[in-house]
């Protein structure tokens, strides 16, 4: 593509179909404890 560079291959919608297993880390257990951030967590199945 001449005009656009897409940075990622994954589509968030597809992750919903098999998602929600609940085995990944609770976000507040990683480092934050005061400022909720969820998107920087890892998927348990991607480790």
């Amino acid at each position: 593509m001449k005009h656009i560079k897409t940075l990622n291959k994954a589509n968030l919608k597809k992750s919903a179909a098999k998602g929600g297993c609940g085995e990944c880390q609770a976000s507040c257990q990683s480092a934050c404890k005061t400022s909720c951030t969820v998107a920087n967590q890892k998927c348990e199945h991607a480790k």
Partner: protein
Amino acid sequence: MIHQYQLNGYNIVLDVNSGGVHVVDDITYEMIQMLTPPLRGACPKDVADRLSEKYTKQEIAEAYHDVYTLYENDILFSDDEYEQFSDMMVSSPVKAMCLHVAHDCNLRCSYCFASTGDFGEGRKLLDAETGKKAIDFLLVQSKDRRNLELDFFGGEPLMNFGVVKEIVAYARSKEKEYHKNFRFTITTNGMLLNDPVIDYINQEMSNVVLSIDGRKEVNDRVRVRCDGSGSYDSIVPKYQRLVEKRGQDQYYVRGTFTKYNLDFAKDVMHLHELGFDQVSVEPVVSDPKLPYALTEADLPRIFEEYETLARQLIEKRKKGEGFNFFHFMLDLDQGPCAIKRLRGCGCGNEYVAVTPDGDIYPCHQFVGMEEWKMGSVLDNTFDLKKKSYFAKANIYGKEGCKDCWAKFYCSGGCNANNLQYAGDVLRPHKLSCELEKKRLECAIMMKAAMADES
């Protein structure tokens, strides 16, 4: 839903529903601003006419072709198809616990949300029997979840290190019988670290959070001992030793920035210069009347500082000297699934806090607010009505989140901050929203900059 912005010379377009991130040239950036879905095979005449003042017919046709290709691939102007998952936003097993082993502390940090360690409830330590009952609670309430997280928290948990060890041993002894895998973490101010403690932490804790705010003068202004003297000189060598002996990246040195150090990028860099490569420095959240509080008037300065930090990190990474800054960490391909992003932090539903008295609260930040107490591990009471309330505290239940471009990244913000500073769990704390959005814009821009290199 689209979010587009320009930062550090990049034109960035985020397709919110698919998570697609696109770096585009000027004509495409302007074109996307003018388009409204659904799109058709040819560029709408009014859009083409407006663009023709600056661009040729051929340029417009080519740019539209690229835009339309992404649209057809469902990564630009993609539909919101998440409503169908709303029935998954229900009460879930409890899988994570913040265990307050010490409502006491050997520091007197002026910004402490725990009222210098005792959460306003008097100084006390958790006894081993209550701790074991908390483990029993987690073993039962986690139902079919296998991975359980337990964070030893305080106050300062190392003031009750013997009990920490007893609880870890007890939990480990139950893993096989209950088919569970415990992941322990500990959050410490470092004052009581020594070689045996460091070795124990490195062996048993899957993550360790080491509190320090950055430069000596910044840290020692706020993180002081009972006699008012600073903690920096005592903790830095201990942290360095722990990290050196640990030999892996599952740890954080974690600081807080306040109005006193709006130049916090210097603190992040300082922590890296001390030899740490997993760094988190986060904004203080407090009553806006307090002298160190961040307020809306500080936002332009903080935004500028986040941009400075992002540029410095890009430079470092390009030289192969990169390190992790927690709030800029973003994996565009393998981050958490959309369901997790919709659910949010899990406070009061998947995650609870337990005090030295055995009381259960939605999370560590709610501890001491009697009206939010959910039960006790001593008599196995657990308020399922409150639990269901928190299960609904997701982005569909919170004011404004559904229509926010950042919803799949912040997931509705911190429930406790919302309650304390915006008056309601379901009303996002606007200052935190603004900071989160800026950090995300920086994190995505950094991806663009690094992709430019490759």
